[in-house]
């Protein structure tokens, strides 16, 4: 059957492409404990698959993440950093995430100043029930970092 062979062939091809010889970035994820970390747990509980490149670090609130922490990750050679907190207005600590929302753009500017693409730093909001969303965000972000290629700082410092 002509059509079927065609359809299947192309599907198999992309699978193979995806699996091999691909740049595997290291991404540090800062997750607030109440929403994003719990959301990531939810992704696990509901078995939502995503790429294994993200390495989560749990903090109580996204507001805890200072520019130093983010820069440290890049300095060590991280290809991407994803900061995730509760949706605005839903912060467990009332407004810690507003501080994060204000801070991240500043750090992004700093990154471009240092010659790193600001796209390497991601900020997102994931609630405790949004396992699907967590997986989707990580999939997207990983793809984005993959397209940017390895960090120029990897192994340099």
């Amino acid at each position, binding site marked *: 059957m002509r059509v079927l062979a065609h359809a299947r062939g192309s599907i198999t091809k992309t699978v193979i492409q995806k699996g091999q010889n691909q740049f595997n970035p*290291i991404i*540090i994820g800062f997750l607030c*404990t*109440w*929403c994003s*970390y*719990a959301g*990531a*747990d939810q*992704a*696990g*509980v509901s*078995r*939502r*698959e*995503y*790429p*294994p490149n993200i*390495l*989560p*670090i*749990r*903090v*109580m*609130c996204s*507001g*805890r*993440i*200072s520019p*130093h*922490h983010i820069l*440290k*990750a890049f*300095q*060590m*050679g*991280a290809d991407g950093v994803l900061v995730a907190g509760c949706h605005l*207005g*839903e*912060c*467990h*600590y*009332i*407004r*810690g995430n507003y*501080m994060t929302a204000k*801070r991240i753009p500043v750090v992004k500017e700093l990154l471009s100043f240092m010659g790193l693409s600001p796209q390497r730093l991601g900020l997102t909001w994931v*609630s*405790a*029930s*949004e396992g699907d969303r967590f*997986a989707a965000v990580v999939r997207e972000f990983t793809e984005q970092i993959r397209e940017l290629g390895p960090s120029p700082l*990897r*192994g*340099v*410092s």
Partner: protein
Amino acid sequence: MARVGVFVCWCGSNIAGTVDIETVLEAARRIAEVVHVEDNKYTCSESGQQSIKKAIKEHDLDRVVVASCSPLMHEVTFRRCIESAGLNPYLLEMANLREHCSWVHRNRGEATDKAIKLIGMAVAKVRRLEPLIPIRMPVEKRALVLGGGIAGIQAALDISKAGYLVTLVERLPTIGGHMAQLDKTFPTLDCSACILTPKMGEVLHDENIELLTYSEVEEVRGWVGNFEVQIRKKARSVDMVKCTGCGECIEKCPLKLPSEWDLGLGLRKAIYRPFPQAVPGVPVIDREQCFVFTKGKEKCRACERACPADAIDFEQEDEVIKRRFGAIVVATGFSLFDEKAYGEYGGGQYKDVISALQFERMVNAAGPTGGHIIKPSNGREPRNVVFVQCVGSRDRAKGIPYCSKICCMYTAKQALLLKEHLPESQAYIFCIDIRAGGKNYEEFVNRVQSEYGAIYIRGRVSRIYERGDKLIVKGTDTLAGIPVEVEADLVVLATAIASQSDSPQLARILRIPYDEHGFFSEAHPKLRPVESVTRGIFLAGACQSPKDIPDSVATAGAAAVRVCELFASDELALEPAIALVDAERCSGCLNCLEVCPFEAIREERVDSRRVASVSESICQGCGTCAAVCRSEAITMKGFTSPQLYSQIAAPFEEILKELEVEMPSC
């Protein structure tokens, strides 16, 4: 040099099925300062915990990494475990190999690699952890129950019976909730009022219970053991103390308005009680409608003249009350999906297409039709009645993918009541499935079919339209494989159980999470079903998910037990993971004071120098202050910068080693 023990869990096949445990153990052994590594089928089990304790003793461990599930699941378990082996409980770190690894990755090699990195990061952090001592706080032994439906009523009574004080806040003028609107209840068919009204009375007369109806919570501050809550008591325009509940005022009020309680099927006055058995029996004046408020101070006042107790008070103002509570039970219930979204069913336009709750009001002897089932369009008795299930539920396109759980049952009940009220009638029930899991539920549905002759048609209705005074219901019988049409006199829609429309706002006030449908989230679906993630806030009844009365009452009781458990000790141990200012390094800029969401930071003088200082009973440990402190003068216990830095660096150490580059210092 620390002596770290690493315990890798299989979780049966949950982790071991995807992560290669042997490789992980091998790698863990090579990490610096790790002196002991072992694996375990189920680490949280009694034997698993025993072997941790044993290893601590045998290998003289001073730090422990458990590589298993989420810390949100078992951190407490393992803290207790190492504490009983003589270690400070805060010298534990968990690597989440299950939720964040084996359950979300399929490729064995990749998952194993990630597991090793996660353990490396946990070890890096654990090496720098320091012993912490929990902060002790007194507990305010008074509970706040939000919502006076059957769940709230039950929770309030249970807590009160254990000897604690309760404030029950209900936003309507009466307690009772949806159950007070129902007629008979499945599966036993006892009359709702007969079992509910005694409980409502009990609440009113219970000395331990303070009942605040027509009231709403406006603000919640503080934390478990010490919530500070602001409650607005809306002006009732009737003096609660003077009013005897005689009802003379209602008689005399000239204004007739559609009754919300009867869902538009009946009328009420501008001064009203939602229903005769309302608790409290004190009426309220609807200020949006009453002539005094719409037309002028000197207008009408018929109720005032009629009142023998001189209880009417048009000048009354809202009252704002502040109270302290040790725990909060949220029991704010549900709302019903609005069938207007179904244009294909007439979108709420046809008089003879009613909602199931309207049907309840109609069959209720105390309802607007005195218990007569009629066609609202002409008052005549219907013969063919079509019930349509899953209206709004299980309909992704209309925004609700979930099953509302109780409508199969109440539809069966309503078909039975229909036959009892009108023996000549015929019920047709369009359903996708009949979900009747529960004690005596399936038997009940069977009886409705065999003894009461209800005809179930498996298939969803696509269209309802009027033809003369009949309704044409177009469906399919998917079992027979044919399209069918029923000419109906009355159609009853089993509309979905939805969350209260303002639940996100309430969740924000309470700082508890809710799901995408607006139902409040439980801390764990199986093991902590009545707790919110936020300590000290519990969930009861249908505000957490669609529930029938038995489930609502069961969860209310469970939530009450949780509250009592909290109140049973005089002091509460609070997380010691809070902020600490190093006065030496502090420059006194007070950036931290500005950002602290809890006003936990004060200005202090040390040797006449201005410095910041954290009050440990208020600080919640969010770390916002630490992130803005340019002098790095704030230590976040349990999440210090050195701890985070080494955690960040860990996954790169291997790589750097391979490349033979110097590790940058922190």
